[in-house]
């Protein structure tokens, strides 16, 4: 009697052959789905990262012949890069550029999205116009900017005509404003991105809490700060974080327009790495800088991902609750 009970209880813990083969099939299925990604990582990304690590510790320039004979120099290159003031400035410039353009994109994008959050006549027209800059190829932005921004060019002419004052900044050749100019271009180019995300976020906000607050007599201002903004927080984070990361990597506009000049005024990290590697041919130094930038970016990205995940979970719970309620 007791023996039978024991064996009966142990049956569920021993999967049937059919269940086993099902599990094996699922396992095979999983691996075959993942195979392309794993192959790409193993044969494209890993060798590249390995080479980069190799060059970081071996001094090699293109004049040396085969790269496999490069001399081992230990941490010398890291020391060289870390004591290079030009690298330090490039870091500062990149961070400033990314911060400035992120904030700019956010402010423009948020203002536009907020103005357009409810349907009105002509909404589709404005939406179409507003996303066009984002659909312009970055290199094209750079060359068009050149056509617009020279000192006696159309932009200065137009502003002078409208305001009546003689407006003649040298957008591209004055080292003090060259970086802000590129920043403005970045904002022009990518404000649509923040706009699109924030508009979708605003549209997804449930109307009940806002109506409830209004019925309770909250002012427009309070509704905005205490109801709408907190509900929008995940999307705001998303817009800021993604824009910052993309701006840190910005290369085509800066390079095609100014190649880091005038002087070193627009020499951001990507531009400096590019110059070191492809104009001065200091492959190893470039590799070390790349390595440091990669580490910096990994730290930033991991932090960003933590933020995004937390916000996404909050959002998921909110949507789940909303679904359960309605």
């Amino acid at each position, binding site marked *: 009697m007791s023996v039978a009970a024991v064996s009966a209880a142990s049956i569920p813990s021993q999967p049937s052959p059919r269940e086993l083969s099902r599990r094996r*099939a699922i396992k095979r299925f999983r691996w075959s789905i993942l195979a392309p990604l794993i192959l790409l990582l193993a044969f494209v990304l890993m060798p590249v990262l390995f080479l980069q690590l190799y060059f970081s510790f071996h001094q090699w320039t293109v004049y040396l012949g085969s790269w496999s004979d490069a001399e081992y120099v230990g941490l010398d290159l890291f020391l060289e890069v870390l004591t290079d003031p030009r690298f330090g400035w490039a870091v500062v410039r990149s961070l400033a550029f990314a911060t400035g353009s992120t904030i700019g994109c956010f402010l423009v994008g948020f203002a536009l999205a907020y103005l357009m959050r409810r349907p009105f006549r002509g909404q589709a027209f404005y939406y179409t116009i507003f996303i066009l800059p984002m659909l312009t190829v970055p*290199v094209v932005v750079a060359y068009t900017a050149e056509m617009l921004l020279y000192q006696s060019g159309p932009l200065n002419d137009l502003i002078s005509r409208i305001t009546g004052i003689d407006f003649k900044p040298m957008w591209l050749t004055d080292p003090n404003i060259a970086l802000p100019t590129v920043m403005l271009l970045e904002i022009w180019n990518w404000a649509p991105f923040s706009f699109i995300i924030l508009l979708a976020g605003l549209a997804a906000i449930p109307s009940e809490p806002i109506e409830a607050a209004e019925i309770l007599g909250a002012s427009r201002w309070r509704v905005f700060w205490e109801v709408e903004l907190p509900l929008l927080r995940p999307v705001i984070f998303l817009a800021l974080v993604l824009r910052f990361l993309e701006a840190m990597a910005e290369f*085509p506009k800066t390079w095609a327009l100014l190649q880091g000049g005038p002087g070193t005024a627009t020499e951001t990290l*990507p531009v400096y790495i590019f110059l070191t590697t492809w104009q001065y041919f200091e492959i190893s130094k470039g590799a070390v800088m790349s390595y440091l930038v990669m580490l910096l970016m990994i730290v930033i990205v991991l932090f960003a991902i933590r933020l995004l995940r937390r916000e996404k979970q909050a959002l998921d719970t909110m949507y789940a609750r909303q679904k359960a309620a309605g």
Partner: protein
Amino acid sequence: MRKSRRRRLTAIMRYVLLTAWAIVAFFPIFWMISTSFKPDTQWFAWPPVYFPHPPTLSNYLNVWFGAEEYAATQYAISSQKPLISLLNSTIIAGTATLLSVLFGAVMAYGVSRYRILSETRMFQLLMLRMIPPIVIVAPLSLYYSTLGLLDSMTGLILIYFLTSLPYAVWMTKSFIDEVPREIEQAAEILGASRWRTIFEIVLPLIRSGLVATFLFILILTWSEYLLALIITKTQVTTLPIELSKYQGSTEGRVYGRQAALAVGITIPLMIVGLIIRKHLARGFSFGMVRR
């Protein structure tokens, strides 16, 4: 009475502000298009010429087809072949995007239904996209030169495939998540294999989502600059690289020609973008924004 007046005032303010930004957003694009139709004396004129008079097609004919009927301007560059770049760009961006949407959609299915990647792994996948490409271009070009992939379409396609895969997975997953599982369970009961379920049931159901993802990633790969700049040399060039060559190899300013090329590169992208404008938010937001 006062309330309705205030409302009208806000509406007017809104139109003023939106129109102001619309002008800012559109003016450079207008200038590019306008310049592309200007004869060479108006490219760089003072005071600036806003509307070409008379408009001419010579920039387009010269840049895209190498027509030289305006020989005085000597800007025709015989060694450059935008039509071949156009073909290259189409093949490279098209193939890479197709691969990434196809494999991305299958992976997304696996993630959505079998959790083959945990949420942590999904976010780690995003890192592939978030690390600036500049940090790998030098070793990548050396690696490619050893493999003989430098200056080849395969090389670019591979790296574009890899870098756009995260977007493809995330975006298609947001569509697959919306497909009710009951349909697949029914197919399974009827004896369809897992692969058949994917290709004959699930993917056809999210057809419009796949098209949106395809076009979205096409925008990214079509306009990519840095990797193309390093990996292409002479045999293969993409359109953005072709445009930047126009700058480097000529004397003086050839705004009209550049603009004609730029318009040709940008207009297809804008059309594509406007087709999928409703899905753009989804593509960029990694499941954070739903509709």
